[in-house]
């Protein structure tokens, strides 16, 4: 095991050795605490109260404090603390409201020393004074904190938070008289132990309960708090008002927080729910944990650093009934797994990628993309800080822009907008979409035919005579499969004609049988070539091949699939016709898919029906996957939606989901919100329809009284004022409201636009220089 590694740290007289290890407890733990010399740990829970010795190789059970046949509820511990001065002194907080102290020096089996039953509700926390031997503080669900002098039978003072339950109390490390208390209502209070009448200071730290707080061991003024709102905040208490200086957002409510010894900026957290890991954060790097311990199988309930001057050992107890010692060097470092490279396509086919600088410099010999290659500084270098243990990651960002003409995406936008996906009978949808594609004269015109094919397959049981035709239609399609192998080697540099000719030969036999109508039908496929070739040439002119790999490939592949079916056309119509760019334009333009469709119907009776609808499903599936793989996910998704149940079962859910996601992403980048929403709505994938179920609520506060508005967006129920008046016309805005983020004045979109055309100051007269971009 790699975790067998041993570390020895010399700390004054004592030295700590050990490895990552664990032991099974009999019951879930609620809290743990170590004694000062870091040799023993106490584990407390509802049904457990034991002391373990920390030996080099293992935990050894030293003492079971839970004695008696039917132990009383005083043994049911919510919290435990080992005195940091007195080796024999422990205190526990019981769920029934008792505060109990234990003296390990007692000769009897029952070590219970004193019992305070002053709290009416569960005690959530006990805390010994760091230097004073007899001072114990408790915080309870009943909203009171009590200070006990262990030489007396009763509490010496009671502090009333005047608010809800106390979740945590902590003596300040440096300030003899000060302690902090955190509350269920989100407040944190500072108290002077000598003044029980009122708190010194109070501030709201979190929304919802503050589950924990911890004073920085070295820095006098720093207090870390963690709450149900999933935040860890670090407060500077030296100033007049508590100032939030760092904030870490975690993924679940924060149950415990502990500063890491000897490391000024590190703290460990564990969570109350759902997440079982322990994280160590560098608070200056709040986005990614510095280290993670992933051993526990249920929520971690107690964490404690083994020695107050040793940052390498962390102990933790959990609801999964285990006690762990974690070695810091065995921790997972999420930073190492983070990917410092990024690659992204722009909307118009631009490509940006960020990569580690060292990698870029090794490629420096490369010819830069003319005019297009721009490098942006990504991270500005900070002066390396020796205390930071993060590797410095700096990346260079390169952006490659494509030639505007070659990859205009208008067709995408138009087709997306015009395609009808639902609301009409199946056949009409197909017809409509076919027409759309035709009108746009895009390479995707082929979808016209595809749609027809699909339609025929789809309605096969009804329209028996359609079979044969679709069969014939499918001919080239399936041949395509066979040709693929051959076409693949063709790359952009090959003369396109070559591949055609080779395909033609292949196709020859099969197409010969077909009669007149096919000729025209394939005719419309010709369109593809027209539009495709110029694009292809454009790509070839892109001078820098290696970097620009992806886009050309996409086009190249599409070329393959498209030019194949057109082959018979060359063969039959004009064998000598070499597929030059300008060649076919005229003849093809007159053919509309409607025509070809009517021809289809004529030819129907010629063939005898003997095929089943499901026969075509695999073919359609293949075809869709091709489209998707070649980058035309629009096609794949549109067909998928229109066909609905007919094809859905053929394609596995993950693939469908992937297509949907890609298409929706594209649509959203083009700001086609309506279309993308329609797609989401129509999709049959549960993962996709979920997208619409996530909250789309926008919360607004009244600009007048600053209270949340409940009913309507424009009138406040509380102060009866119109909250969103237009700064230009002074009427209520009941639609698009635009406002300046600087001065927060705003109004009707048009009004503001007009105003700022002629003025530069805010229309409200506040003197702010607003800017409309």
């Amino acid at each position, binding site marked *: 095991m790699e975790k067998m590694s041993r570390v020895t740290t010399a700390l004054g007289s004592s030295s700590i050795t050990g490895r990552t290890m664990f032991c099974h407890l009999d019951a879930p733990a609620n809290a743990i605490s170590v004694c000062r010399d870091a040799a023993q740990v106490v584990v407390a829970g*509802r049904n457990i109260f034991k002391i373990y010795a920390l030996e080099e190789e293992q935990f050894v059970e030293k003492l079971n404090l839970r004695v008696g046949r*039917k*132990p*009383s*509820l005083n043994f*049911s511990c*919510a919290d435990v603390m080992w005195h940091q001065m007195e080796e024999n002194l422990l205190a526990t907080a*019981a*769920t*029934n*409201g008792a505060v109990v102290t234990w003296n390990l020096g007692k000769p009897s089996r029952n070590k219970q020393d004193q*019992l305070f*039953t002053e*709290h*009416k*509700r*569960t005690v959530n926390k006990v805390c010994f004074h760091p230097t004073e031997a007899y001072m114990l503080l408790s915080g309870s*669900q009943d909203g009171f904190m009590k200070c006990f002098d262990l030489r007396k039978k009763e509490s010496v003072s009671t502090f009333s938070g005047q608010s809800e339950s106390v979740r945590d109390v902590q003596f300040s490390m440096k300030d003899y008289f000060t302690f902090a208390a955190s509350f*269920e209502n989100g407040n944190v209070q500072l108290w002077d132990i000598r003044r029980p009448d009122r708190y010194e200071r109070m501030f709201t730290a979190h929304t*919802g*309960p503050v*589950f924990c707080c911890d004073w920085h061991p070295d820095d006098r003024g720093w207090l870390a708090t963690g709450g*149900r709102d999933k935040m860890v905040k670090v407060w500077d208490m030296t100033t007049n008002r508590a100032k939030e200086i760092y904030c870490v957002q975690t993924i*679940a*409510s924060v149950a415990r927080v502990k500063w890491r010894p000897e490391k000024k900026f590190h703290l460990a957290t564990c969570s*109350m*729910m*759902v997440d*079982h890991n322990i994280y160590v954060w560098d608070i200056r790097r709040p986005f990614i944990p510095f280290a993670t311990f992933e051993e526990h*199988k*249920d929520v971690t309930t107690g964490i404690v650093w083994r020695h107050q001057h040793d940052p390498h050992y962390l102990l933790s107890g959990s609801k999964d009934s285990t006690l762990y010692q974690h070695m810091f060097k065995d921790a997972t470092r999420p930073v190492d797994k983070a990917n410092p490279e990024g690659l992204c396509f722009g909307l118009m086919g631009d490509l940006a990628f960020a990569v580690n600088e060292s990698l870029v410099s090794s490629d420096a010999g490369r010819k830069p993309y003319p005019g297009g290659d721009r490098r942006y500084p990504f991270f500005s270098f900070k002066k390396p800080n020796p205390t930071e243990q993060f590797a410095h990651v700096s990346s260079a960002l390169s952006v490659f822009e494509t030639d505007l003409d070659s990859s205009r995406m208008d067709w995408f936008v138009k087709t997306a907008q015009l395609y009808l996906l639902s609301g009409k009978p199946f056949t009409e949808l197909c017809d409509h979409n076919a027409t759309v594609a035709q009108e746009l004269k895009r390479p995707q015109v082929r979808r016209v035919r595809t749609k027809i094919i699909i339609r025929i397959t789809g309605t096969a049981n009804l329209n028996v005579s359609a079979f044969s035709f679709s069969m014939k239609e499918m001919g080239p399609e399936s041949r395509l499969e066979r040709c693929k192998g051959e076409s693949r080697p063709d790359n952009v540099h090959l003369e396109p004609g070559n591949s055609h000719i080779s395909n033609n030969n292949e196709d020859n036999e099969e197409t010969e049988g077909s009669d007149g109508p096919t000729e025209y039908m394939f005719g419309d496929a010709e369109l593809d070539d027209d539009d495709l070739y110029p694009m292809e040439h454009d790509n070839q002119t892109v001078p820098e091949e290696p970097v620009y790999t992806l886009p050309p490939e996409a086009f190249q592949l599409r070329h393959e699939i498209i030019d194949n079916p057109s082959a018979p056309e060359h063969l039959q119509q004009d064998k000598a016709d070499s597929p030059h760019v300008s060649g076919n334009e005229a003849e093809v333009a007159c053919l509309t898919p409607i025509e070809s469709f009517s021809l289809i119907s004529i030819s129907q009776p010629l063939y005898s029906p003997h095929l089943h609808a499901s026969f075509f499903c695999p073919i359609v599936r293949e075809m869709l996957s091709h489209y998707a793989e070649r980058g035309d996910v629009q096609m794949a998704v549109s067909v998928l939606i229109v066909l609905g149940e007919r094809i859905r079962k053929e394609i596995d859910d993950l693939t469908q989901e992937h297509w949907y996601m890609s298409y929706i992403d594209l649509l959203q980048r083009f700001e086609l919100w309506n279309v993308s929403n329609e797609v989401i709505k129509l999709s049959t994938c*549960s993962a996709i329809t*979920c997208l619409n*179920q996530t*909250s*789309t*609520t926008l919360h607004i506060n009244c600009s007048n009284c600053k209270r949340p508005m*409940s*009913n309507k967006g424009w*009138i406040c*129920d509380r102060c009866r004022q119109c909250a969103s008046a237009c700064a230009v016309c002074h009427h209520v805005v009941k639609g698009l409201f635009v406002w300046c983020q600087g001065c927060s004045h705003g109004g009707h979109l048009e009004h503001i636009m007009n105003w700022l055309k002629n003025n530069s100051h805010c229309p409200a007269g506040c003197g702010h220089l607003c800017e409309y971009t």
Partner: protein
Amino acid sequence: MASGSIPSFTFKAYGEDNPRQVSGSGSSSRHHSDSESEICPTTKSLARLCSRDKDERATALEKLSEKILVCLELDRTGSARLSKETLLHLLRLSRSCPLQEVRMRATELLCIAQEEGIEVPRALASGPSAFIPAKELLIEGLNQDILVESFLSLGQVDHLTMVMALHPSYLSCFLRTQHALFELDGPLPRDWRHYVSVMAAARHHCSYMVQQHSKAFLEAGGDESWLSGIKHAPVKLRSLHTLNKLLAHRPWLITQQHIQELVCAGAEPRWSLAELIHAVILMAHTHSLCSFVWGCGLNPEPDHIGGYAFHPPSPSHIPRSPHSPAHEDGRPELVDGAVEVEVLMKRMVELQQQQEEECTQEEMVTRFERQRSESIPTAVVRGAPPELVLCLVEEPEFRYEDFAPRGEQSPSTMRAQDYSWEDHGFSLVQRLLPDMGQFLDEEFQVVSNLTYNRMAMHEDVDTYTLRKALWNYIHCLYGIRYDDYDYGSVNVLLERSLKVFVKTMACHPEQTTARIYHAFWRHFRHSEKVHANLIVMEARLQAALLYTLRSITAYIK
């Protein structure tokens, strides 16, 4: 036009004495109502009465009367001149609208209509509640604002709202939760939400809630045939049956497996966690609301079946309402009631001052068990539930049974310290259904802090211990135990008649009778009894939620 009239049509189909001849007849009557809605006031025009603008409201009111008068001029026979749904709506307005001018006008119009020879319906119930005298709930009271607000935003003030308005601070947060549950964005479609509530209400035979939600279900575009029987609903909804049943009667039996069956990858139909939690909250919310409805003896709304009649009821022929709180008269006799209050107050003070004596865990457990297993006679068997409700319930014979932890394979008690709403439940709900946790949290907090510092005829009383005892007693009935609570004080504070009421309400709400209601706290105000009702309702909601959420947490893990 047609779309505008659909709600009013369904409304009507509902009000008919012999409703739901299943879906087939729907289409024919639909035409009928279409032609009528041309002239008659539509719901749309009625909705304008809810405008926040005073002038607009006045105009809408004028228009409404004009239209109705025009209808009356029409040359048709008898009651054909005004459709039934219009009449019922007027009736509702005349009885429950918090705006005086609207109420007056509606009454006036009904009078005119009657003079014109139209059969006018009259409400059978004398007030919102069969237990609480109507004058205690008079809508001119102090709580005008909140009622007006609710009228303006919801278009009606139902009996539930009127009774809750005794505690305005609670009502406002209740309405917010209700709004968020049924109207705001969420994983379930709106008609489904209401249908889930219908299913839940049917478990407690609460035809008041069933009718309220059925109406809303149809307004949300739901399929009418679903209401004629649960077998017409989609499989996915029907798969909630087990959970619904357990949540309503024995939530402690809910386990990880129940969640898994609905959520895991192989499940068909499969629920997403967000959908499931939405449904769970809907069901638990409705179940506990049923407790409230029965516990306060709410009368059917004027437009519910049995809530109105066209002829003045003769004693021999009272149209039987499927929802009628039992009318046993149990007016309090004034025997030493005042003394009871004194004693209770004294005990509360004592409890607060008394230092807790140390008891063994055993003793505490025994006290807890004693509370839980104490036999409280609750089973006054009511007649079979009405057909309307029965068709929506599967396994109607599954009922509450005392939580029995001592048995063989029975579940262990839930420790409040191990799974609490504040620490665990909230985070889970918030994670799966953002904002919902916040709303529920607020509701729980308002209820647990609600106090007017008075008790019966005494002012300046700290009622904390009493409220706490109620809350913990209900949780105790549901098998949730607080380590830091001495269950001995439940016996001290809650008299037997109160326990009977609480247990009936929490466990067999449909068997609440006026006698039970009147028997406890005889010198307390009605508003205080409603307060007790609120505590029972929320405690029950939280208990049911805790068990389910705990199972979901276990499933996620």
